[in-house]
């Protein structure tokens, strides 16, 4: 029993014994609680303080209002407890009901539920893995506060290595309290771990593996709430030719399966549309592209496309293209959605285009709660964490439904994840899964670097 609920119970007890403070706003009394209309300067915690004498009891109002909203249209669901609007209707349980809810929350807190997170936590892609991990943790934190569960995140470092990934997978599977796994990053690692989770009948939901074949045909336990490369290649090629009007391109991949896969798609689309295409491969360890640039400049293509994932490389290539006076357009993919390379390249980054599989949480209203909390705990962030929080929320929702149905098993979590049907989500997009457990819809966004920021252009 945690400290917060303990002190809350004591306070509730005092309240029941004492007179209780009647609200001055002439509330409508109903069974076990009262309706309340939000006034200016109201916060959930303030209301909790007023009604229960404990600022920390605010999740009860949140949870109760959302529960009411499910059966009564005059109530609206509170997505973000920090954002309640004046005039909005809340449901404030009376002390007896609140006590019962606290008891319920307490019993939930006693259940050992874990979500496995796997990703590159060390090495060159560590920033990505760490961001995904911390976003998953933040999402779990918010979920725990809202529902009273005490879900834990257990983490495993894949080092972007398929074999290491399999070992991590086995470890999660062996832990009976792990009900779903978020991760990994890197399509090659997803590919290696996919059959392992399938055999174990456990949900695996990836925030960033985009290779097509992962959901085509796919497995029953593998979920992808982000669009795949099959959409990105044509989107990019189309933008290059029809919007930018280029007829020649130089494609550079970094030899990772994600990068080569996407480059293949773009190459196919460009070639089909009649553009001249040249191509080269670098590695993720390279720190100098001067000689590549020398070759590029010699053939002077209209666009240089580099779906790299190591942000420092993106900056170096941009700066070196500028150093050797390349005059065309620089075009990146998801890895480009990371402000650090823009800082690296300075003015050389200006005008660069990139396509990204998810919106930037900085700009998503529905993510505000998540990002504020994240920022307070972990500092600045890029765009990889959003899908990780989204994935986490999807499996948390499934776990909650299974629990409510008194059937908290891995098999149920698989079923419920597949049945996910959200009209809105933390990234502001609807989430449901279609064939191969690929998200329905899903689109790529095209951004341009303008004045050192990412600006959505399509």
């Amino acid at each position, binding site marked *: 029993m945690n400290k917060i609920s303990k002190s809350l119970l004591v306070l509730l007890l005092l309240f029941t014994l004492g007179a209780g403070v009647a609200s001055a706003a002439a509330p409508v009394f109903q069974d076990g609680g009262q309706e309340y209309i939000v006034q200016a300067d109201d916060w959930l915690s303030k209301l909790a303080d007023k009604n229960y004498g404990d600022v920390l009891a605010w999740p009860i109002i949140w949870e109760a209002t959302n529960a009411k909203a499910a059966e009564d249209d005059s109530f609206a669901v509170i997505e973000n407890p920090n954002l309640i609007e004046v005039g909005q209707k809340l449901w404030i349980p009376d002390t007896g009901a609140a006590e019962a809810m606290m008891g319920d929350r307490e019993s939930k807190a006693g259940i050992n539920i874990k979500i496995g997170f796997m990703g590159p936590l060390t090495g060159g892609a560590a920033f990505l893995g760490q961001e995904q991990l911390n976003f998953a943790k933040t999402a779990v934190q918010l979920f725990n506060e809202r529902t009273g569960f005490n879900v834990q995140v257990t983490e495993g470092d894949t080092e972007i290595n398929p074999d290491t990934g399999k070992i991590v997978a086995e470890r999660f599977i062996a832990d009976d309290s792990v009900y779903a796994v978020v991760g990994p990053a890197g399509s090659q690692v997803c590919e290696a771990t996919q059959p392992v989770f399938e055999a174990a009948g456990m949900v695996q939901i990836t925030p960033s593996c985009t290779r097509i074949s992962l959901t085509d045909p796919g497995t029953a336990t593998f979920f992808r709430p982000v669009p795949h490369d099959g959409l990105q290649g044509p989107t990019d090629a189309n933008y290059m030719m029809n919007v930018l009007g280029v007829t020649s391109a130089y494609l550079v991949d970094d030899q990772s399966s994600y990068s080569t896969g996407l480059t293949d798609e773009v190459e196919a689309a460009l070639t089909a549309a009649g553009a001249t295409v040249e191509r080269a491969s670098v590695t993720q360890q390279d720190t100098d592209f001067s000689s590549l640039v020398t070759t590029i400049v010699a053939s002077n293509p209209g666009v240089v496309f580099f779906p790299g994932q190591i942000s420092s490389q993106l900056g170096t290539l941009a700066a070196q293209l500028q150093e050797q006076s390349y005059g065309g357009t620089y075009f990146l993919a998801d890895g480009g959605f990371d402000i650090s390379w823009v800082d*690296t390249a300075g003015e050389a980054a200006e005008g660069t285009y990139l396509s990204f599989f998810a919106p930037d949480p900085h700009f998503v209203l529905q993510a505000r709660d998540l990002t504020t909390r994240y920022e307070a705990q972990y500092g600045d962030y890029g765009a990889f964490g959003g899908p990780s929080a989204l994935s986490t929320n999807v499996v948390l929702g499934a776990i909650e439904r299974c629990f409510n149905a008194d059937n908290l098993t891995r098999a149920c979590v698989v079923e419920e994840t597949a049945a996910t049907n959200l009209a809105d989500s933390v990234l502001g997009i609807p989430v449901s899964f279609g064939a191969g457990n690929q998200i329905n819809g899903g689109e790529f966004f095209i951004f341009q670097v303008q004045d050192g920021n990412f600006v959505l252009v399509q």
Partner: protein
Amino acid sequence: MDQLPQTIINGLTLGSVYALIALGYSMVYGILKLLNFAHGDVYMIGAYIGYAVLVVLVPSTGPLLPIPIIILVMFLFAMVGCSILGVAIERFAYRPLRNAPRIAPLISALWVSFVLQNLIQLTISPRPLSYGSGTLIPVNSGINLGGDLRIHTARVLVIGTTIVMMIALTYFIRSTKWGRAMRAVAMDIDAAAMMGVDVNRVIVVTFIVGSALAGVAGVLVGIVFFSIQHTMGFLAGLKGFTASVVGGIGSIPGAVAGGLLIGMAEAFASVYISVTFKDAVAFLVLVIVLLIRPGGLLGRLLVQKV
């Protein structure tokens, strides 16, 4: 456009960095017969020290000192910081194992390497940091070599600094008592000790000099290629090691020659074959050199003492 001159410039830049790193490998190997696999990470730390100085001396309001002074201060701090680090590594990771089987210091070298990388990842950032293009040296500055060809000031700085370092080091090794002592210890550690050479001090000096050069290389890479990351030491260390083997491990001019050869091989392979094969070509150079001259370009296979 003729790509040859630009390719040579690219190769010289890269080769200079490799040469500076290779020197540290070669010197330590020469003296201790130890592959100091933490050396690449000392170089990485040098880049981060340079970054720290840069952040302090160039706040967003503009540089506090003239740019050449700032660059000098960056070199100075990186050299001193890396020297201290190098000496500490020798003292705590290698010296206790000096009489242990050869594999032991190798493992402790790898351990140091992981510690340094994780330290930076945890305390600074797992993300790449940037010296910023144009922060110190204007993007469009450089020497015009006619036509479209321009050699950027940062590259002039890299190549120039490397040449100065090489000359200073050669003088140090050839003509000073510490240099003589280092060569003596490298050739016969017991005999050197018997001639009154304080072997431990010579080893410390070797780590100071090698680490300072790595620190300079780290700062130079930050200035010329902009971005630094906690993992940058791995491949650079591997290339520096390859360069020192190509040149003849233990040989100072060999390390320079090896560094330049590997840098040039990469640049030429990128432009005239394919950038995809540049690392393969670099290691192919290693294989070919070792087939023709097993001791490396300028190395001698000394008969092991009995």
